[in-house]
């Protein structure tokens, strides 16, 4: 029997899908055991879809869309929806758990009532180590037998207590055998669950060596949505994600609640946000625009140079010029930060040598902005150079020939042929580069953390903070640490702003229409 290529393909396909399906099944079991039903449904639907699309001949055309669409749903749409959901909650420090978890933790607390006794214990277990009996001894030497939720005084003379080797230690109780220290350790997680009622108290494990008389400290009343401290009688009502008493005392931990539009209202009314907003917004805009312009200008200039056939060693130059693109941004940004250091940086040393004094690169608002643009130029020009190199190839040579015959100068050829022809294909990329820089958190944060601060400012926004880095500050470096709810609200707002700007750009430049005409 000989296999054709077609058969191999089918076998390969089946093999790949078997593995994929098996992985999906495995993952769905895990999701099921964690009660993550929404994700489970998404996973199953996605897997079934993929199977249908790739195994059925009828669905052949869908093959080109479905995988990409699924990835877009998982990596773009789902995070976006989840962010939107979080922005309507108070998720953040103190509000990580849901209400049930919070109540469970609070009501699971015990206290030692006054005069409470502690007990040393021996544990006895059945053969399967599933049921336990305890022999407890208080500090006065009184013995108690604890089994089936109950605890009763017992005397050594009791017939059910058997001391086989007569060493004073009971070895067997009701046929249960005594656990060694080692076995107690092994069964600690079962033993810690044991609870015995004794008068008004509960006898429970306090640490691995002791049991103690304890009392539950809190009780939850669902009807009034309150928790009562049984020790003091104090009442705590659920408010704003905490159980709060009249005097303002919170029970910890708090819980996550839905806030409605509150985070958005905060953004619009809080003067920490509204006051510096215009200034930060303008700099964000400047930063994004100047970054695109400078990187594009340099990239285009280098591309035109490299495109000139008269230039020797072009490949070598091209390789060297692309290098900044190959180095991870967070490394080169930190290196640049060192170069710009006011005291010991190389740049200031050179300036000092030539002019006799350096510049406050990181401490002065203007120079810090300048330095950031220089660094971003370094990081960004190779990308622009690459796309320009590609786009230059696509400009027909006849145009230049015709221009040469008409006697156009070099500058005229660039202005009337190269640039317009180039922009047709490059404009959409420039717009996406603008959108990217609009949210370029990495360079702002790593280079100078949005500093320098502004003297006497009413808000903590620094001079080089852009919208995204400033809101990071507001959400994670103020209040009690992290406020994911507020951060998400800001993210949604920035998303809308970026979307509007991008849409406007596309409309205004007509970039997409031109591309269509050329296709």
């Amino acid at each position, binding site marked *: 029997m000989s296999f054709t290529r077609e058969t191999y393909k089918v076998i390969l396909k089946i093999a790949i899908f078997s593995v994929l399906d098996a992985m999906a099944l495995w993952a769905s*079991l895990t999701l099921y055991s964690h009660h993550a039903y929404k994700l489970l449904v998404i996973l199953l639907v996605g897997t079934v879809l993929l199977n249908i699309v790739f195994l059925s001949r009828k669905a052949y055309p869908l093959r080109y869309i479905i995988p990409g669409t699924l990835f877009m749903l998982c990596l773009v749409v789902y995070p976006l929806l989840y962010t939107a959901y979080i922005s309507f909650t108070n998720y953040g420090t103190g509000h990580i758990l849901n209400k049930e978890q919070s109540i469970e933790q609070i009501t699971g607390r015990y206290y030692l009532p006054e005069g409470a006794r502690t007990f040393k214990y021996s544990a006895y277990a059945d053969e399967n180590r599933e049921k336990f009996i305890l022999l407890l001894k208080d500090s006065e030497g009184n013995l108690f037998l604890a089994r089936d939720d109950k605890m009763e005084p017992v005397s050594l003379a009791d017939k059910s207590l058997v001391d086989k080797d007569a060493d004073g230690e009971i070895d067997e109780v009701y046929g249960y055998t005594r656990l060694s220290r080692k076995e107690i350790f092994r069964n600690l*997680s079962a033993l810690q669950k044991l609870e015995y009622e004794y008068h008004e108290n509960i006898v429970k494990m*306090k640490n*691995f060596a002791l049991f103690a008389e304890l009392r539950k400290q809190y009780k939850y009343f669902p009807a009034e949505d309150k928790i009562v401290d049984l020790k003091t009688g104090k009442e705590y009502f659920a408010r704003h994600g905490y159980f709060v008493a009249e005097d303002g005392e919170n029970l910890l931990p708090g819980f996550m609640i839905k806030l409605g539009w509150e985070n958005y209202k905060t953004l619009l009314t809080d003067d920490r946000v509204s006051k510096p907003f215009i200034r930060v917004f303008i700099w964000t805009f400047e930063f994004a625009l100047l970054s695109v312009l400078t990187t594009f200008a340099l990239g285009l200039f280098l591309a035109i140079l490299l495109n000139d056939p008269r230039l020797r060693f072009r490949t070598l130059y091209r390789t060297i010029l692309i290098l900044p693109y190959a180095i991870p941004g967070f490394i080169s940004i930190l290196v640049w930060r060192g170069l710009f250091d006011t005291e010991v940086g190389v740049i200031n040393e050179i300036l000092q040598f030539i002019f006799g004094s350096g510049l406050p690169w990181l*401490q002065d608002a203007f120079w810090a902005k300048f330095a950031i643009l220089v660094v971003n130029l370094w990081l960004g020009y190779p990308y622009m150079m690459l796309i320009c190199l590609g786009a230059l190839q696509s400009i027909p040579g006849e145009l230049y020939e015709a221009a040469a015959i008409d006697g156009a100068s070099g500058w005229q050829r660039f202005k009337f042929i190269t640039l317009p022809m180039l922009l047709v294909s490059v404009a959409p990329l420039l717009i996406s580069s603008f959108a990217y820089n609009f949210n370029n958190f990495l360079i702002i944060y790593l280079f100078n953390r949005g500093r320098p601060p502004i003297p006497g*400012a009413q808000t903590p926004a620094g001079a080089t903070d852009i919208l995204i880095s400033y809101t990071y500050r507001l959400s994670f*470096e103020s209040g009690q*640490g992290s406020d994911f709810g507020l951060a998400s609200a800001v993210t949604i707002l920035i998303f809308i702003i970026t979307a509007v700007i991008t849409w406007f750009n596309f409309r205004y430049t007509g970039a997409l229409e031109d591309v269509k005409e050329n296709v």
Partner: protein
Amino acid sequence: MRRLMIVVLSLALLVGMTGLAFASEEGKLLIWADEIRAKVLQEVKEEFEEEYGISVEIQELAFGDIRDNLGVSGPTGEGPDILVGAHDWLGQLVHDGLIAPIDLTGLKDQFYDVSLKAFTWGEDVYSVPYCMESIGLFYNKDIVPEPPKTWEELVKIVEEVTDPASETYGFILPQPDPYHTFPIMSATGGYVFGYTEDGEMDCFDIGLNNQGAVTGLELLDSLAQKDLLPFVDYNTMMSLFKNGQAAMMITGPWAFTDLKKAGVNFGFTKIPSIDGQTPKPFVGVQGFMISAFSENMMLAQAFLTEFVATEKTMAKLYELDGRPPVFKPVADKVSSDPLIAGVLASAADGLPMPNIPEMASVWQAWSDALELVLTQKQDAKSALDNAVGHIYKTLAKEKAGN
């Protein structure tokens, strides 16, 4: 054929799954530790496993990631039983309901008091601490044979040694950095949060712009004004000191290993007194905590109290890390080391770094103020006033939200 394969594969995976440790599981310990602690625990764990037949799994995470990941993994039941962490996380972790108190009955007097206090919230202790740290004065013995005892002596040395032209400095500290600047502001009476009458931290009593804090910052500023205090960040400071270009610097014991490796002949001592008053650095404590979502609370506790809080393990933790132990039996043995003695002396004067989550709103505003003052853009009084104003504002927002 395809169906058969799926069945076979998924069965195989199902069987395999039972052996995988996903999360805190009954009767098994999962520990999250940073690189150094993971190494030590790896050694202790075998002994424990052998003796009790309980399996212990150690997952290595970057120190800071432990806190961040706990907030996500803990509540879904995928977190560890035991984790390593710093005491200033405590407030946040308790607010989030992520960690559980530890019963240290009978063990408390084995630890330095300050280390347990740092890990106390309300009436409960939440950790078995293993080391503490506190910043002090590093001096290059080749340049400064005898460290200064008073601020005036320090200034004198600085004036002699500093020569910006050849990039040689008498005294440096990372800037703008509240943590490293605090001792100088606290010596003269500055503090972060005051205390209420019942001894609880009061986040509405901020002492960062009182007369003492201003005086301390002005002292530093007067050095900066005379071009005697360069504005450098931590990394630049370290490389200057390593190259012998700095006579003195302020930082903590984590730098010991690095400096020894670089072959610097250095000493570590208390920061010189200011106007006869002692600088009070922040004391930081690190320890083991137990997740509130552990299925094995008692087992985790027993592991910590019986196996970690022992001379053997604590000594190993000290050996690999180099920061002073807080477990007295070990600390007593190593305090003859002059470096450790220096840190212990410095910590003895110190204040535990506030462990309440409100600290988050303090660092940024404070550090902005330091930068404005030390780069001569604003005077100490108005910059600190402004910073404290910001802090109150964010805290008031927080309070109003409740």
